[in-house]
C-alpha cells in the first residue's frame, strides 16, 4: 500500500491513458461493425467474405500487428493511433459476426410489418432493425469491451503507456505491488465499462424490462 500511495499520481495518469486507449477502439469497432454486420446478415453474397475476412483478423498475433500497422499507416510505433487501430481491428473481428447475428435475430414478420407500414429502408434500419438487434449486439459489444481493455496492456511491451506499464515496469524492477495494482485496476476498468454498457442497454431498450417481468 505504501508503494501505491507514493505512486498514486503515476497510477492515475496510467489509468487515464488506459481509458483513452480503450474507449476509442470500442466505439470505432461498433460504428464500423454495425453496417458491415447488417450487410453480412442481409446479403448472401457478402456474408461469407465479410465474416471470414474479419474473423481472420483475430488470428493475427497482437505484437506483430502493432508493428505492421505503423509500417502500413505511417503512425509512430508507440503512438496511441497504432494501438487504437490494432484494437479496432480486433474489435471488428468479434463484432462484425456479432452484429450479423444480431440483425439475423430480428424476426422476419417484424421486418415485414415495418415494410408494410411504409418504412423506407433507412427508416426500417434505424427505427426497427437496429433497436431489435440491440440485445444481441450488446452482448457481443460487452465481450469486445472486456477484451479491448485487457489487450491495451499488451501495448506496454512496445512502450505505449497504459495500466500494462505497471506490469512491465513491476516485472523489470521486481515491484509486486506495481504488478498487482496493474492487474486489479485493469479488471476494475473492464468491469466498470461493462457495467456502463449494461446500464446504457437498459436505458436504450426499455421494452426488454417489461417483457421479462
Amino acid at each position, binding site marked *: 500500500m505504501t508503494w501505491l500511495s507514493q505512486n498514486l499520481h503515476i497510477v492515475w495518469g496510467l489509468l487515464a491513458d488506459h481509458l483513452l486507449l480503450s474507449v476509442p477502439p470500442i466505439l470505432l469497432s461498433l460504428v464500423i461493425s454495425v453496417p458491415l454486420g447488417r450487410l453480412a446478415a442481409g446479403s448472401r453474397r457478402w456474408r461469407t467474405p465479410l465474416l471470414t475476412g474479419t474473423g481472420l483478423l483475430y488470428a493475427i498475433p497482437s505484437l506483430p500487428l502493432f508493428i505492421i500497422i505503423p509500417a502500413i499507416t505511417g503512425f509512430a510505433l508507440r503512438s496511441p493511433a497504432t494501438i487504437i487501430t490494432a484494437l479496432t481491428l480486433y474489435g471488428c473481428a468479434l463484432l462484425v459476426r456479432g452484429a450479423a447475428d444480431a440483425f439475423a435475430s430480428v424476426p422476419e414478420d417484424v421486418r415485414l410489418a415495418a415494410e*408494410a407500414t411504409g418504412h423506407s429502408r433507412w427508416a426500417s434500419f434505424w427505427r426497427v432493425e437496429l433497436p*431489435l438487434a440491440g440485445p444481441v449486439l450488446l452482448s457481443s459489444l460487452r465481450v469486445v469491451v472486456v477484451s479491448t481493455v485487457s489487450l491495451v496492456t499488451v501495448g506496454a511491451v512496445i512502450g505505449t503507456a497504459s495500466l500494462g506499464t505497471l506490469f512491465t515496469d513491476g516485472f523489470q524492477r521486481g515491484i509486486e505491488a506495481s504488478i498487482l495494482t496493474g492487474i486489479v485496476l485493469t479488471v476494475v476498468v473492464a468491469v466498470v465499462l461493462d457495467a456502463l454498457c449494461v446500464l446504457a442497454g437498459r436505458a436504450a431498450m426499455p421494452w426488454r424490462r417489461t417483457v421479462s417481468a
Partner: protein
Amino acid sequence: MIEFDAVRKEYPGGTVAVAGFSLRVPSHSVVALVGSSGSGKTTLLRMVNRMVEPTSGAVRIDDVDVRSLDPVGLRRSIGYVLQAGGLLPHRTVADNVATVPVLAGRSRREARADALGLLERVGLDPALADRYPAQLSGGQQQRVGVARALAADPDILLMDEPFGAVDPIVREQLQAELRALQAELGKTILFVTHDVDEAFALADEVVVLRAGAEIAQRGTPTEILAAPADDFVAAFVGAGTARRTLRIRELDGRRVVVDGDDRPTGVLEADAREGAP
C-alpha cells in the same frame, strides 16, 4: 377500386405463385380471398402495396398503375393489418398506432394523441397506450393492429389473416366489431383468410382460390353457399356437411333450426329477415 389485371407471379426457379389472376374490388366493399396455404392469396395482397411485384400484368388503384407510385408512399396510404397484429415489439401501443403518421412527418405528440382516440374506436382502453405489445393478449394486439392500419385514414385496408391467431370467441367479437367499423367508415377492404367462416362473416364478395390463385368461384357468401361451383368449392365451404345442412323442427309452435346431427343452432323468427339478402 382495386383492379388486378392478369397478374402473374413466377419466382426464380420456376415456382408459380399466381398463374394469372384478374379481379375488381369495388370501392367501399369488402372482398375476401379464401384459399388454403399455397393458393397465392397473400402474394396477391402484397401486390397491391408493392411488397411483391407481379412478373406480368398490372395492379391498379382507381385506374392508376401502382408501379407508377413510390412504394413507400403507397404503403403509407394503405392500411395493412398483419397476421397476429404484426406490431413492433419495441414500441408502445400508442407509438405502434402512431407509426404511419410519424413516418409521414407528423409530430410524435400529436400522432400519439390521435392514437388514443383510435384505441377507443377499436374497443381498447386508452390506459393501455403505454404498454408494450408483449403485455397484451392476442385479441388486444389484433385490435392495435387494426387501429394502426386506420391511423392515416386510408381509403384501402389490406388484411392478412387478420383474426387467425386468436381464439374463436375473440375472433367472432373482432369480426363483429370490424363489421360495425366498416358500416361507419366504408373503406375498400381486401382481406385474405383460409377460414371460410371468416370470409362469410365479413365479406360482401368471396373469391375462392385454388393453387396458383386460380379462381374456383366468386360470389356473395349466399351465392357460394347456395350453389358451390364444383366439388372443390363444395368441400372448401363444407357444403353437405352436418354443420351446413340445417333443417327446421317445430317445438311448441317455435321453429328451431337444427343441423345435420339434429343439434340445435338457433330459433327461426317468423319472417324477421324477409327481404334481406
